């Protein structure tokens, strides 16, 4: 099949013009302005509280980074179900009594405007022996026994935030628990007293209190000046869903407290901005920011560090899965990272460690 030069040039001109218009149209701001609605301004009033104090009960999720990554690799990679991974629980030199498992847990003391107080336990760690010691160190065990802790908020189902639930339930089996939507059947079974021998996991103290599953995509009030927001994040080791806490501290602004923040701290801040009244002023952050938990890296994390200063956060507490490398880079970028004391087996002072506290308000 042949074609004249004129015919070909006509076709080229027609195709080129159509292609150009298609590309220019698809990428033009005019088209985006027409089809993409402007971002919502947050209007959900969560109330106001006087102050928020966060005590790091344990931010040491595991003691040997390479070991925990090797456990996942040996089991088949980062997509394998966490309940069937034989986590190293003996013979780890740096571990707690040879067990590589540690855990993440934080105690949040909330002071309301009327002076009354609420206590929230955010996550319950992993290794029950280690968590028992951490709870004892911070007096959490007695608070649980005395029913001083109002609620256990589980940020997500991950082993290092949830598998230590026995340490909480043995002291207070009827504590109210809030989980994000996405918990798997195994997670609910663990709360009921199931065991998972392959993962060296058990709970001999079935939960008897109220259990609430919080849907994603909306703000859930918890106490005056405090709410949770859930996300549909898919996470390694076959975990789905995570929630974070947001507080409105009088005369300061909003404070975001996270467990691991797999949804990304910027996504969390944006969600707050677009849903919560006063979301344009983020005063503080605390918690795991899930950037380089295994001291691994991705250029996407540099994008985050470069973008975070524009949010104007005044106090940046972080630890755990934030990663020391991230903290080092954040400090170099001029972000107000609150440094820790490196006690109770936290390794560096770069961020808040075990037993450290941060107060907002």
């Amino acid at each position, binding site marked *: *099949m*042949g*074609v004249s030069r004129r015919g*070909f040039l006509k*076709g*080229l001109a027609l*195709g*080129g013009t159509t*292609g150009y218009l*298609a*590309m220019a149209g*698809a*990428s033009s701001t005019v*088209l*985006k302005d027409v*089809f*993409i609605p402007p*971002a919502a301004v947050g209007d959900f009033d969560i109330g106001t509280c006087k102050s928020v104090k966060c005590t790091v009960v344990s931010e040491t999720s595991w003691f040997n*980074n*390479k070991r925990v*990554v*090797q456990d*996942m*690799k040996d*089991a*088949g*990679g*980062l*997509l*394998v179900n966490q309940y069937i991974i034989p986590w190293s629980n003996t013979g780890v030199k740096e571990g707690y009594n040879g067990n590589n498992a540690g855990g993440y847990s934080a105690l949040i003391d909330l002071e309301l405007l009327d002076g009354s107080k609420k206590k929230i336990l955010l996550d319950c760690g992993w290794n029950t022996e280690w968590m028992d010691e951490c709870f004892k160190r911070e007096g959490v065990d007695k608070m649980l026994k005395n029913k001083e802790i109002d609620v256990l908020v589980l940020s997500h189902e991950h082993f290092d935030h949830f598998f230590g639930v026995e340490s909480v339930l043995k002291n207070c089996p009827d504590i109210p628990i809030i989980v994000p939507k996405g918990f798997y059947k195994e997670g609910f079974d663990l709360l009921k007293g199931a065991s998972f021998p392959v993962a060296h996991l058990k709970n001999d103290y079935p939960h008897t209190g109220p259990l609430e599953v919080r849907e994603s995509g909306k703000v859930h009030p918890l106490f005056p000046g405090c709410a949770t927001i859930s996300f*549909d*994040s*898919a996470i*390694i080791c*076959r975990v*789905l869903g995570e929630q974070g806490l947001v507080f409105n501290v009088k005369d300061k602004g909003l404070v975001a407290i996270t467990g691991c923040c*797999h*949804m*990304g701290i*910027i*996504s969390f801040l*944006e969600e707050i901005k677009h849903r919560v009244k006063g979301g344009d002023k983020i005063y503080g952050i605390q918690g795991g920011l899930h950037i380089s938990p*295994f*001291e*691994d*890296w*991705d*250029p*996407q994390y*540099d*994008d*985050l*560090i*470069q*973008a*975070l200063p524009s949010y104007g956060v005044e106090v940046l507490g972080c630890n755990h899965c934030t990663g020391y*490398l991230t903290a*080092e*880079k954040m400090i170099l970028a001029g972000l107000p990272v609150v440094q820790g004391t490196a006690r109770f087996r936290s390794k560096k002072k770069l961020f808040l460690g075990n037993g450290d506290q941060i107060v907002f308000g």
Partner: protein
Amino acid sequence: MISLKNEMWLESRIMENKIAQPLRGIIGVLFSSIIFYILWWIFMDPRGILKWYTPQYGYMYIRWILIVVIWQAYVFNFWPFSLKWRENTHPVITGAVLMFVNFAVVGAVIWGFFYHFLGIYSIPYLSVDKLVGKGMTEFFAREYSSLAILMFAAIASWLSPIVTVCFANHPWQNLKQPERGITIFCVTALLSILAFLCLMHPHYHVLFWPWQEYAAAYPWWANFAHTLSGNFNVGWVMCGTVSIWMLEVTFDRYPYILIKNKIRRGVVGFIGVLLFAILLFVTFNFIQDLAWGPAIDGAKRILAPDWRYQHSGELAIMMLIPAMILNFYFDNGPKKYSAPVNIALRMIIIIVSTMVFHWLYYKFSPSILGTQAAYSHPQQFPMAPGILFICVMLFHNWFMDLWPGKKRTGNRDVMLDDDGEEIL
């Protein structure tokens, strides 16, 4: 002068239908699906046997299987196997042997060339051992090196077919094998290495700490792409790969085939492929903006700019799958109208099928493939199963003559003139 068989054996095949449509098409898709699933279960599935989909490690092998199958059939015209062997052997045997050769070459390239040659003597991030030796966790050492190695293949699978599809093997069309294969291999390998150094090597400037500012350029796309990640280039290169293959399977090389001079055709075709790739890339980015809102600088997952770019590449692959199914198993219909009309109708079928496939993939992949239910997950890439399925379809067509739905009854014995045109 060279015969069509020696120039491009696949194009000389005379195929006879053994089963009527649509049963033939359905059986063909089922056959490929079964082979795909066996391979996925053995090598990739996190619930399977070898569990290589960690994800980059397994994904690397898949990318290399694709480029090696292109080398085998398009670049080397099945050399070192004789065409007589290819013609006289049962398709199941040729399929098994050529697949085995494919896997062996992939293993040799990855383990021999990258891990133990290039990684040791030139760029350490290509060698797991070198990275582990620097104190890196073995798992991430393997993932980092896998990403780099697979990107070589991704770029090559975009550039290698261009010589055949756009240039009709010119100016080397009259060379015999293996001279022609080696020549095209060397030229496209050189171009792929250059492209890798410009498109992916800067990613490694910022992947390590301290930044490798003396060894690699700062990502030049950072300001306008709003990310330092090489995923920006992954996205449009994937669209480029899909673009060249759609030119082959859906467009039947139209309209560039109208240009008689093969070098001119090649240059115009290459530019056309690039423009079509950018069009796909921009359009898929825009569709994502419509679905999920604009990407946000520094955000993760579904809102991350770099993931959006990568997902544009994934969407392109999802478009190529129905395009190949239509060509390989359903006779590339419709065919009865003029070329532009046929192509337009095929594109409508492909776009609708892509939307259906997209929905099916995210609905059923967790139970079928052992992945997680989510659009954006930092540890999974729909491109991996997608490209493996494409590889299996290529095996089925190029190595097995689409057995059992079709049977190759012979080959057209025609000669080509110096310009690559058939001598009537």
